[in-house]
Every structure is written in structure tokens, then in C-alpha cells.
């Protein structure tokens, strides 16, 4: 099934934006990882920005970036948020509190603990009352989110914003959670080609593994170190401007094939 990518948002170590990441993803410049720039999430009112935590800021930051090129109005968009690890920081704080004598859970932390917290803050920030879902498929969360967003764009004939995001949790969770690096990756998906379309993509479940890897070892560490970064092979095709097929692992025995046909550099 087909969809169009009308916008991209990206924040990761060494990548301050999709635009900034394109030369390295195209193989035209060296990838210098470094730290991930802090997400600003300016879309949030100050009071919510103080309460929401870094994971939500990351999601809202890349989601906002993906809307910019075509000027899509956030309030009109259906959204799909997908996250493999959940909010490790909040989980850690709540479990520490529950292991203490008082068990005095903070109400703000409790409502921030829901998997759809980012979606809730997005809706409050943008005024969007369109359908919104929040998914998890462990390390295949990006693939599951991409399919959900694409089938929704098709079923409802509307643009859908996909936001994939994950942050490494604090210790002691860090030792048991497969998330080593931070990354947020957003795509605005449309059912029809438009003036802002960057690429057409075709999705299939017929592909067999193994999944597509990235040639640069540091980029490959990012791809395997964060479930949202599993979408990078698609962005590499967009950045290079050349048609390419990427295989993404959804589950250990199921792969999503993504054929990307970029419209060339814009």
C-alpha cells in the first residue's frame, strides 16, 4: 500500500534537525554523533513544558518539525505516537516511590506515566481533536507506527503525523532496556501526492529479513541503539534522492518492506 511523506522531523546525537542530518544520511558528509541537542518543544505552553518531562518534549519537538515544510495545520491532523521503551524516567521515579515506606506517588508523575502522555500534551498544545493513537511494538515500534499511520491516512483520506521517540532510561533500568541512545523521528504521511511530498513509499509484509543496515558504523549504532532510529534507512533514501528498498524488523519473524521513491532534493 502506498503513502506519501510530506515532512520529516529528526533529533538525535549530532542531528539538530532533518535538514542538518541530510548530508550525513546521504553519505556526503561524515556523521559526528556528539550529544543530542536539547528538544525545545516551543509548541507547549510554559506551564505544560515544565511539567511534561524530556521524553514528551522530544516527541513534540520532532512532530512540530515535520509539519513545517508544507505548512500543515497541527489541529487538523490525526496522530500516531509510537515508543518502545515508554517513559523510563517516570517509571523509575514511581517504582522508587512505591518501594519506599510512604508510597506517595506524585499526581503529575502518575498522569505522565501513561504511554499516551506525549499525545495528550500534543493535543492540548495544538488544540487537535482529531483521532490520536499511541503504540508499542518493542523494537519494531517504528514499523508498527508507520503501518498504523499509513493505513489510517488511506482509510480516512487524511494526513497523519507519525511520531517515533525513545530515550535511554536511567539506572538501574538502563541495564535491562535496549535503548542506548536518544532519538526522535517524525513523518507527516499523506494519502495523495501533494506539493510538499518528499517521497512516495510503498509498504509490504512480503519482505524477509535481515533488516537493512546503515554503512556508517556510527549511524548503524544509532539505528540499533534506539527503536525510533529504525526508520533511518528510509530517511537515508530520502536524503540521497535515490529510490531504495528498506527492510525493517517489526517482530523477530516479521519484516516490513518500505520502497521509497524520493522526488529528489528540494
Amino acid at each position, binding site marked *: *500500500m502506498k503513502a506519501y511523506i510530506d515532512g520529516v522531523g529528526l533529533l538525535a546525537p549530532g542531528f539538530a534537525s532533518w535538514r542538518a542530518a541530510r548530508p550525513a544520511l546521504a553519505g556526503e558528509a561524515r556523521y559526528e554523533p556528539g550529544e543530542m541537542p536539547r528538544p525545545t518543544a516551543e509548541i507547549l505552553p510554559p506551564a505544560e513544558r515544565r511539567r511534561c518531562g524530556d521524553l514528551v518534549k522530544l516527541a513534540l519537538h520532532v512532530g512540530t518539525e515535520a509539519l513545517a515544510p508544507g505548512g500543515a495545520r497541527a489541529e487538523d491532523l490525526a496522530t500516531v505516537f509510537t515508543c518502545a521503551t515508554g517513559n523510563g524516567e517516570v517509571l523509575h521515579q514511581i517504582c522508587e516511590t512505591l518501594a519506599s515506606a510512604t508510597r506517595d506517588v506524585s499526581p503529575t508523575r502518575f498522569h505522565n506515566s501513561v504511554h499516551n502522555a506525549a499525545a495528550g500534551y500534543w493535543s492540548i498544545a495544538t488544540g487537535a481533536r482529531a483521532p490520536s493513537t499511541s503504540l*508499542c511494538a518493542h523494537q519494531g515500534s517504528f514499523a508498527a507506527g508507520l503501518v498504523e499511520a499509513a493505513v489510517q491516512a488511506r482509510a480516512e483520506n487524511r494526513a497523519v503525523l507519525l511520531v517515533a521517540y525513545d530515550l535511554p532510561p536511567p539506572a538501574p533500568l538502563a541495564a535491562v532496556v535496549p535503548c542506548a541512545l536518544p532519538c526522535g523521528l517524525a513523518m507527516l504521511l499523506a494519502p495523495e501526492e501533494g506539493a510538499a511530498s518528499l517521497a512516495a513509499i510503498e509498504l509490504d509484509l512480503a519482505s524477509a529479513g535481515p533488516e537493512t543496515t546503515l554503512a556508517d558504523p556510527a549511524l548503524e549504532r544509532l539505528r540499533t541503539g534506539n527503536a525510533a532510529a529504525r526508520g533511518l534507512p528510509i530517511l537515508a533514501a530520502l536524503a540521497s534522492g535515490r529510490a531504495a528498498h528498506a527492510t525493517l524488523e517489526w517482530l523477530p519473524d516479521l519484516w516490513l518492506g518500505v520502497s521509497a521513491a524520493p522526488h529528489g532534493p528540494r
Partner: protein
Amino acid sequence: MSPLIVTRYTGVNCLGRGVDAWWAGLRARRSGLAACDFEDAVLDTFIGRVAGVEEVVLPGALAAFDCRNNRLAWLGLAQDGFSAAVLAARERYGPRRIAVIMGTSTSGVLSTERAYQHRDPGTGALPAGFRFAETQSTSSLAVFVRSALGLAGPAHVVSTACSSSAKVFASAARMIDAGFADAAVVGGADSLCLTTLYGFRSLELLSDAPCRPYDAERNGISIGEGVGFALLERAGAGAVLAGVGESCDAYHMSTPHPEGLGARLAMERALAAAGLAPAAVGYVNLHGTATRTNDVAEGRAVRDVFGPRTPASATKGAHGHLLGAAGITEAIVALAALERGFLPGTANTRALDVETACRVLIEGEPAAPRYVLSNSFGFGGNNCSVIFGRA
């Protein structure tokens, strides 16, 4: 989208194992809620605990998934011939052509809570036996159910708090419509844990009595646990999944829109998806949490959409608030009402709040609705309404 048939459904909660057991409780307006005796929680509240979860032993090949939530799921798969129905569907469609879409809010967090109680005193490390992916991960339930049923198709978990396992119907319908699957196992499970018990206490939303939806004296929720499953196919015998409506409040993280704006949008969108006029719906299973804010706002929204006469009831007084499993559980209550010709009443509720804008049945009554609707609303202002119809 072409309509889907609900060819089998089942579940487990504090009313019992299997839909006949729940239905006996719902017909009798019985409450399965009891004073909180979960683990070492010290809370002046009532809960809907499922008896016997502690004794469930998962088979060896699934042992890595062992946690309270997946044990509940395992109990659910064994009821009402559900596993056998899925295995028959697997023969018809092939294992890669059946999707598994599950809803949960807290997954296996109880395992993480316990791990934090047994950290290494020197290093702070979690105990060696703790398995994140198979228990705590929000995706665990879908991977577990897929493995337990020997399926190999697409799978994910929807986690939008208390609307999670209502939205699975929309997600599955879209996936089948796009050709990624021929059938889907949908459902959800949420299990008792300290996170939700103490979390809802922090928000001062726990009732000190068995919850009384829409009652003048309601004072909060009673948390339950449970699981429900449904098998969706393009053809077969059963009720029709007529339409699903999804919306957001865009208002507050943990308080519903006071006029029920998002709730109204979800119901209107479900009607539009089903191509129905409001008058076609003969029963509404309310979200009805028994918090002061939910019930007033939802009642207004239901009246705004359906008028003041359409019969509605809230069944959380019977089975508790199942959070991530509330959507599937109450979808099944609505399906059973449709197929068994009886609208359940509102257990524990004695006198309706005078502010109630819609018609809430305190006592159940026989009826033969053509279509029924179930509401589920969650934190983050996430709403979903599901409509089923007679074939």
C-alpha cells in the same frame, strides 16, 4: 470500510471467567468488588480482583512472559472456546494473515514494582530474573498472545490509557481494510498493580466504597483487573462491528472536558463511520467511572448526541474500572446486551445525580436494540466509541 463480524468473544474479570459468568452477575446487578486486599497495599478502597491469577502457571515455552498481566491473558484465552476459534481461523487464513492488536495501560508493571523492592543493596541493580521486554514493555501483551496462539501476522499494543482496548477495533479494521491481514484478534488486559492504586489515590479519585456510577453520592472509582478478546473476520456468524469513532479532548491530561466535547465527537464519529442516525442506537454502555467530573460531562455528551431517552448504563460498579481493559470489557458487555436481549443496569447506584442529563438505567431491562454503542475515555483526553449491530 467493509464491515467486520465479531465471530467470537470472551473475557475474565471479577464477575467470573467467561461471558456467561459475567452475564449472570450483570443480570443480577451483582457487584464483584471487594475491600482492597491486593498485595500489601493499605488503601481504604474497593477493588475488582480476579481470583486465582496467582495460581496460573504458563506453559514452558511461554514462561519468559510470566507476569500478572499475561497470566490474566492466558486465563482469558481459555474461556468460551476462544483459542479453538482462533486456531480454526488460523487454518482458514494462515498464521501470517491474522493480526493481534491488544490494549493495555500498565502491562506487567507489577513485575517492575517488585523488582524495585529487591534491588541490590550495593549497586542498586534490579534482580537478575527481571525481564523487561516480556513483562514491563507495553508491547508484551500482544507478543504474548501472538505466541500463545501460534500466529505470525502483524502485532502491536495500543496504549492510550482507559480507551486503549476500544481503539484496537479501529486499528484492526484499518489494517484489514488495507490488506495487511484477513482477520484480527483484538482485546486487552490490565492487571492490579501498586502504580494505579497509589496513582489514583494521589489524584484523590479512589472511592472508599464500591463505585456508584452516576449516583448523587458517587465519590470515585474502584479499580479492577481483567481481560477480554474478540475475533474479527470479514465473514461469519456474529454481530457486526458497525463503526468506531476516535477523538481527543485537547483540554487536560487527567480531567475530561467539562462539556464532554471530546466524548461527543467520538460518538458522532462512530455514528458517521457506521452511517447511522443517532436514533438507530438502542443502548449506550457508558464510560461511567463514578468520578464527579466524568459522569456529568459524559451524560451531557450522550444527551447532546442521542437525546434524553436512549437507555444507557454504566457497568463499572459490577466489574470495576478495568483501565486498559475497560474498552474491550465494555464492548463485550454491549455485544452481549445486543445478542442476549437485555440491557444491564448500573450496579451499586441507588439514586441518580440530578445533574445526569442522559437516561441511566439503574435496574436492567429486556430490550432488543438493533445497534449498541460503548464509550471509553482515557487520560490525555483520549476518547473512543464503538458501535456494534445485529447481523
